[in-house]
């Protein structure tokens, strides 16, 4: 009887693997990449926080403690959001919602970054042109900023709305 149950369990496991079409190595690679990406984001965010606190005039020890605790919190949130299959490396179908959400967040992060980079580059280009034309620094910055605002509005209009609100379509 026990052997039957074990066999059934193994068959279900195999079926799930066949259904998702993903082997153990693929899952491990995906988990490694995702965890690495999340760790990078957490480390960069911690660095930014540390710099921000330094500029704000917080003492070194307090700065370190705050940054460490914040990173811990961020890691916990990331682990909570991550699909459990990425942590256990088991093939399950229950975490699809979470997996989709974390994918959406990462997509959104990448997309917003790309948009910011493109808008900044365009604004810097305009700034250089205006500087060559001999326009004053402050005036130049204002014109470039207004131009970038326009570009942002166009980009937000063109971007998929689900990536801005982080809701499933």
């Amino acid at each position, binding site marked *: 009887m026990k052997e039957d149950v074990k066999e059934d369990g193994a068959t279900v496991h195999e079926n799930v693997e066949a259904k998702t079409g993903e082997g153990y190595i693929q899952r491990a690679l995906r988990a490694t990449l995702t965890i690495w990406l999340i760790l990078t984001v957490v480390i960069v965010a911690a660095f930014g926080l540390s710099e921000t606190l330094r500029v704000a005039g917080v003492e070194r020890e307090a700065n370190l403690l705050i940054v460490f605790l914040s990173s811990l919190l961020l890691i916990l949130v990331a682990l909570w959001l991550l699909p459990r299959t990425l942590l256990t490396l088991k093939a399950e179908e229950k975490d699809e919602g979470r997996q989709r959400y974390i994918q959406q967040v990462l997509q959104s992060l990448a997309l917003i970054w790309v948009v910011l980079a493109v808008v900044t580059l365009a604004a810097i280009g305009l700034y250089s042109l205006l500087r060559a034309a001999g326009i004053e620094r402050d005036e130049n910055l204002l014109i470039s900023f207004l131009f970038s605002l326009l570009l942002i509005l166009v980009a*937000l209009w063109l971007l998929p709305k689900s990536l801005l609100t982080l809701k499933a379509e």
Partner: protein
Amino acid sequence: MDNILRPKSNRQSDTTPILQLIALVTGIFLLAFAADVLVLKIVELFIAGIAEQDTFFYSAVRQQDAFAKNLLDVIKLISFIAVGVGFLVTLAFLFIGGRGSKEPLKSDPKEVLKVSALSLRGIATTAVIFIALIALYELLLRIVGNQPPFFLIVALVTASMYVLVLVYALFDYTRDLQGEYRRQE
């Protein structure tokens, strides 16, 4: 007996959703305001970091830093006004919508809660995304040093994009809420 009890139960069904609605809308807008303050404060400190690196630059560059800070103050002010006005307009719209129709506003509390929770999650995550991006640029600033006016433009663009995304998220929440109430009618 039945008639005596009926008005009571009706009153309860009228008031509970309205109170719940006000609490949810206030909660979401408060969170949005807090996220806005946090992200813009970080951008302000980012600009302070840029100014710190510009100490040994000539005066025109430092003057530009001060000008960028003024621009950020304007963005901040506009965003606070936008969130405040958005909150008042949302409440007014929901109340007028409720009074305009003969039937009182009705909704499935679970659905309204779900809509609010989704918006809450979206607003919080977007704030984290922008904070991470600002941190990335801070890292770049530390690595390559300030290249006037690159990081100033980055700071201003990031702040304005965040404000616009936040306003859109709040608008989307209000629209979802309205949709939910209309669906129930």
